[in-house]
């Protein structure tokens, strides 16, 4: 399994297609936590379960103000068909050309197969990786790790904010 970029590293910026005529730039999401879910391929059974689960959890992620992004090397039309079939309500990014360039920058690319690892990244508001996890390729990692990370991040922010406001008061 790949050695992913780890906590404390600035998340590499990227601009990728989310639909055939729409681009998304990671840096535009600064100010919000971002969940970046890399997965090997649309339509494969495990990914199907994984995206279905995350789709169901969007309200929980939004409680933390977090944005969820899926990412694979599939093309935009493939993503569009997959998202429609599974009724997904979050963007799927297409790391298609040059193939896997973004996955490589996160050290989450499988050269042999030419697909992304099944890897999760939670980024903080400043775009720094707070937590990352690489799952065995055939295992759906679930969402417990993501929710734990979002919760810990929110707590740390509260402590930080409180410390700042009390130092201002003093």
């Amino acid at each position, binding site marked *: 399994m790949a050695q992913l970029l780890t906590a404390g590293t600035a998340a590499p910026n990227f601009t990728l297609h989310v639909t055939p005529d729409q681009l998304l730039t990671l840096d535009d999401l600064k100010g919000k936590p971002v969940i970046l879910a890399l997965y090997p391929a649309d339509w494969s059974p495990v990914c199907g379960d994984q995206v279905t689960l995350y789709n*169901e959890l969007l309200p929980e992620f939004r409680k933390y103000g977090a944005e969820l992004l899926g990412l694979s090397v599939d093309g935009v039309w493939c993503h569009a068909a997959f998202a429609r079939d*599974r009724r*997904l309500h979050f963007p799927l990014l297409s790391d298609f050309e040059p193939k896997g360039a973004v996955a490589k920058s996160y050290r989450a690319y499988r050269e042999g197969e030419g697909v992304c690892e099944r890897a999760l990244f939670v980024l903080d508001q400043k775009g720094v990786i707070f937590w990352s996890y690489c799952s065995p390729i055939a*295992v*759906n*990692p679930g*969402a*417990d790790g993501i929710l734990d990370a979002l919760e810990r991040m929110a707590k740390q922010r509260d402590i930080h904010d409180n410390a700042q406001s009390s130092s201002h008061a003093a």
Partner: protein
Amino acid sequence: MTTLKVPVTPHDHAKGPPNAPVTLLEYGDYECPYCGLAHPIVKLIQKHFGQRLRFVFRHFPLSQAHPNAESAAQTAEFAGVNGKFWDMHDGLYDNQDRLGLPLYLTLTSLLGLSELELREALVRGTFAPKVRADFLSGVRSGVNGTPCFFINGVRHDGTYAFEDLGAAIEQQLRAHVMT
């Protein structure tokens, strides 16, 4: 090792003695075809282990993929407050290909419960919070698809074939005898 984060409480639907040496807990979705396949296997497991096993069921409806899963879960909860959870549970799985209000009403009336009250509960979403709480407890426990089983609080990562589930339960029983 993935473990159950929310322990079994009296609010759970449980069948079998509370002090049974083994508790088998399932997170399931009434519209999930794999849960439908697992249902008769769970029945066989319960029969096989008898009083040595307690079975607990929690809801894990993937409602974006399965449009009837949520209403079916709420219907089971409605039957549950009227003491008929397991009858409704079996009725829903046995008629998985016909989920929807007409089936819920038929089952409700067969169980001698009020169809009007069921309609009202579904419209008001009376049992939605309970179903959501089950779902979230599963997510926090690492449920990544359905059916997902926990045996004495540890996720069972094997298959739900009778032999696999049975062997994992046997192992817990042996561990219980040793201690």
